[in-house]
């Protein structure tokens, strides 16, 4: 999905260093919706594409207008609606109750607390790199041109560009397929280095290197 979230290289967003930028969030509801989003995943309360993939489905104007945690709120709600955990209109009804001054309900479940922290700590590394990976360190590769309708991890700014494999990270299933529950076999994921002129042409800055982690399916030999 080539949406507003695919931002590498875009202009017009202004400076990076702005007042307040150092903090991870500014209001108490922000870490709470983050936590709630994780919990809905862990507890199986949502359905369909994950939070990240769901946020990419926001319409572009809405995506750019929303704050970071507004996007998380949106994706949490969409996933809950898809599963049927909540029904259309229920959020608005609860908003009205809270706006009218009703106290937020509370519910304690220490077992769930232990479960979620355990889940945050669990380790789950990628498979090791396959012995028969198509490319090896030092190989020149070209990123395929593509316009995937759905989720992808191949940003627009590297498509068609030529780079050099630095290493094989490991094996992983293609998110372009797994996001939608489609079958996918583990395939090599490479670290590919691009010289900046091969991405952006001439620039005011001295040349630099951009490295991306790219699935085998995104690449072709030069």
């Amino acid at each position: 999905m080539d949406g507003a979230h695919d931002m590498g290289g875009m202009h017009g967003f202004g400076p990076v260093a702005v007042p307040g930028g150092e903090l991870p969030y500014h209001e108490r509801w922000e870490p709470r919706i983050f936590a709630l989003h994780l919990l809905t995943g862990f507890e199986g309360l949502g359905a369909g594409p994950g939070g990240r993939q769901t946020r990419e489905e926001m319409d572009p104007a809405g995506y750019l207008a929303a704050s970071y945690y507004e996007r998380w709120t949106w994706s949490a709600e969409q996933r809950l609606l898809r599963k049927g955990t909540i029904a259309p209109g229920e959020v608005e009804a609860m908003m009205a109750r809270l706006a009218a001054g009703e106290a937020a309900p509370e519910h304690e479940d220490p077992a769930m607390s232990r479960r979620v922290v355990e889940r945050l700590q669990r380790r789950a590394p990628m498979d090791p790199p396959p012995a028969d990976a198509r490319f090896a360190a030092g190989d020149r590769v070209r990123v395929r041109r593509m316009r995937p309708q759905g989720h992808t991890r191949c940003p627009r700014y590297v498509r068609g560009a030529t780079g050099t494999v630095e290493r094989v990270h490991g094996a992983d299933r293609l998110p372009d397929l797994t996001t939608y529950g489609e079958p996918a076999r583990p395939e090599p994921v490479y670290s590919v280095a691009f010289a900046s002129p091969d991405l952006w042409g001439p620039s005011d800055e001295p040349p630099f290197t951009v490295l991306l982690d790219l699935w085998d399916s995104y690449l072709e030999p030069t």
Partner: protein
Amino acid sequence: MSAGHHHERPASEAELRARALEALLVERGLVSTDAIDAVVSYYEQDVGPQNGARAVARAWLDEAYRGRLLERPGDALAELGFGGMEGHNMTVVANTPAVHNVIVCTLCSCYPWPVLGLPPSWYKSEAYRARVVAEPRAVLREFGLELAADVDVRVWDSSAEVRYLVLPMRPPGTGELAEEQLAARVTRDCMIGTAVP
């Protein structure tokens, strides 16, 4: 502490919607208030840049640990008790006099939670995601970091499940410092690559 108490100003639409989602699920017993508190507290109290800083300081003091951190980062971080979600596949990239590393996620906001906690707002901003892969020196300059023209800036866009941590160079004049004192010099931004210690 649950949301919804002690608001000093009227809640925004965004806040109200987020609180309503929590209230709906809590009311039905599908998620618990304390579980939400536990996640928030976990990333505010237990996990943050202090973790990454400890690994960096250890690497500065212990060549063997440095070797393990670069070769088998997952295991080396686990030695210190660090690991988990968004850190399953760590890669540690070392700055040298010739190389300066910076991390980003242009498509999303991927970040090594177990060693750095939750990312600062600027890391998630459109401006950072758009610019650092295309004009890294201009971005670093905004952070007050000016690199020599012959340094190879390497920008790591976390496009897959690998998460990156920058191992900065040990600053001169720190020969006498112990691990804890060294760790105090290592800020979060040093491990993202927008600062140096």
